[in-house]
């Protein structure tokens, strides 16, 4: 199994290189000279040339790329145009805020999603099931910013339970976590429900019932364990959509995380910062996928050998 995981890690190296290459090329075809964008229009040509040389922008593109990659491997993503700081430092400062938000959101989505899914599956096809699954679909279909604005209006403005924005106190994290967890809660609930219903058809469930186990025990120790398997991997795969959602959530609630950095970088046309944040988040997604694959083969002995 260790061999399989190693193989997966090796496969993700070319993917990662491709990711860096694509982002690198995309950001280099931007019209306009990066130094002019950085300093403004009315700057002496000599100054521009000097700075371009310092930043290595006068060299051919492929040399720039290899320099970038070799620096990136050592954890150096270049210097931000606007903040005059190392991009890695800026990202690492913002990262804990995003992690905290994502972890809280994940907890919300697991608890709500799993509970709703089980409840709907137990009440299969009656009015409660319909109601809960309708709610889950609403969760999947609502734009993140809409949930955020509605919750802000209700809980921060009308009821004044939670602050409108901020990230320092525990209460200020409640709304952002619900907002970010909402969509995943919907998809987890839908998945849990259909998995439980599928597992319920299996022979071992019939055996468990035949030997006289209570329905609750059948559910807990036979159905749930198997129905949870795909969900565990889905949780790891959800990192990608969580990070996309975090961009919006952080911007609405004013949380200085990675998503906020990316939007700031676009607004101030700070190319190295944007490049760094996108590559950093993509690495996180690839790591998430790797964990998902490995977890699956650890948890499910049936497929351990196949991968």
């Amino acid at each position: 199994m260790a061999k399989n995981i190693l193989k997966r890690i090796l496969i993700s190296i070319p993917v990662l290189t491709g990711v860096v290459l694509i982002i690198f090329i995309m950001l280099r075809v931007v019209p306009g000279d990066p130094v002019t964008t950085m300093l403004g229009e009315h700057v002496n040509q000599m100054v521009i040339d000097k700075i371009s040389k310092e930043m290595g922008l006068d060299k051919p593109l492929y040399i720039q790329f290899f320099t970038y990659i070799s620096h990136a491997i050592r954890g150096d993503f270049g210097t931000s145009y606007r903040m005059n700081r190392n991009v890695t430092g800026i990202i690492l400062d913002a990262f804990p805020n995003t992690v905290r938000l994502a972890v809280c959101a994940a907890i919300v989505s697991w608890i709500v999603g799993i509970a709703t899914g089980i409840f709907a599956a137990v009440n299969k096809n009656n009015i409660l099931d319909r109601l809960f699954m309708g709610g889950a679909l609403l969760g999947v279909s609502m734009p993140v910013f809409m949930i955020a604005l509605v919750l802000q209006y209700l809980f921060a403005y009308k009821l004044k339970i939670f602050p409108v924005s901020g990230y320092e106190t525990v209460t200020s994290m409640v709304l952002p976590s619900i907002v970010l967890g909402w969509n995943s809660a919907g998809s987890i609930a839908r998945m849990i429900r259909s998995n439980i219903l599928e597992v319920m058809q299996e022979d071992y469930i019939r055996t468990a019932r035949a030997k006289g186990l209570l329905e609750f025990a059948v559910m807990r120790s036979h159905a749930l364990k198997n129905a949870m398997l795909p969900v565990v991997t889905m949780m790891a795969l959800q990192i990608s959509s969580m990070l996309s959602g975090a961009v919006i959530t952080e911007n609405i609630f004013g949380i200085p995380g990675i998503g906020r950095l990316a939007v700031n970088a676009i607004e101030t046309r700070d190319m190295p910062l944007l490049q760094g944040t996108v590559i950093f988040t993509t690495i996180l997604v690839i790591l998430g996928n790797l964990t998902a694959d490995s977890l699956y083969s650890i948890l499910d002995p049936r497929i351990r050998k196949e991968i």
Partner: protein
Amino acid sequence: MDKDTGQTEQNFSSEIDDGIDIEESFKEKCKNIIKQNKLAFFSLIMIILIILCAVFANVICRYNPYTQSLKDRLLAPSFAHPLGTDELGRDTLTRIIFGARISLTIGLIPTLISMFIGTILGLVAGYFGGKIDFIIMRFADIMLAFPSLLLAMVVMYTMGGGLINIFIALSLVNWASTSRVVRSETLSLSKKEYVEAAKSMGVGNATIILRHILPNCIPTLVVLFTLSIPSAILSESSLSFLGVGAQPPTASWGLMVVSAKKYLFTQPVMVLAPAIAIMTVVLAFNFLGDGLRDILDPYLKER
């Protein structure tokens, strides 16, 4: 009695040709399908209504979505302005109806383009296999590794805001998942007897792909298409919300939410109306997609 003949005719006709049905059995079939998928059918009607609204926006609306009128700023909902007016005195309902044009084109056109790219690459990868397959699929892996919103943001950074650029961004971002689905479909289809038979008769690769494999992928593609539309609409509204999508004064729903955000506490209807519009369209397409999946391809559940 009627039902019986319908049944036999249907069996008979399906033996001759799967595509053509006798009219009566077709009606029966339609009735059954609608009965079993009320929600999907309702969504379909809803979508048609929204499309009609969007097409005839000029006729329906009393106001112009772009004409500003400073004396009518931030009016509360009234008979003259059912959803009130925005901070520049433009009628909110009018802007929402015109916004449907943008959301629907964003939902349809980039999705079509990305599905087209994805289908071709998927067919080629699945049918030819080997090195081509490896290269295309690794490329798809790379595209799937990006959080889609961030990748779209990078494209928008490179090309600047605006609707055309959103088209390009979304088309570039979303092809990879289609190509994966089409590839796996092609892989299983190309092992079928009729493909083997066609090959042994010396039929060319292009003909086999177009005539024997692609038509069998179409049910899957239709479902995938319907389910991709809402995510494209959501992406556009998110991009516009973040200020890297459609630019003012375009009547885009996402943009309307952003500009109304300041008035969330004083005039919530300005924020809620476009947000509910987005949600309605997204839900309708999701329901329709789910229904189509049940009708067209029972094996595609939960993909």
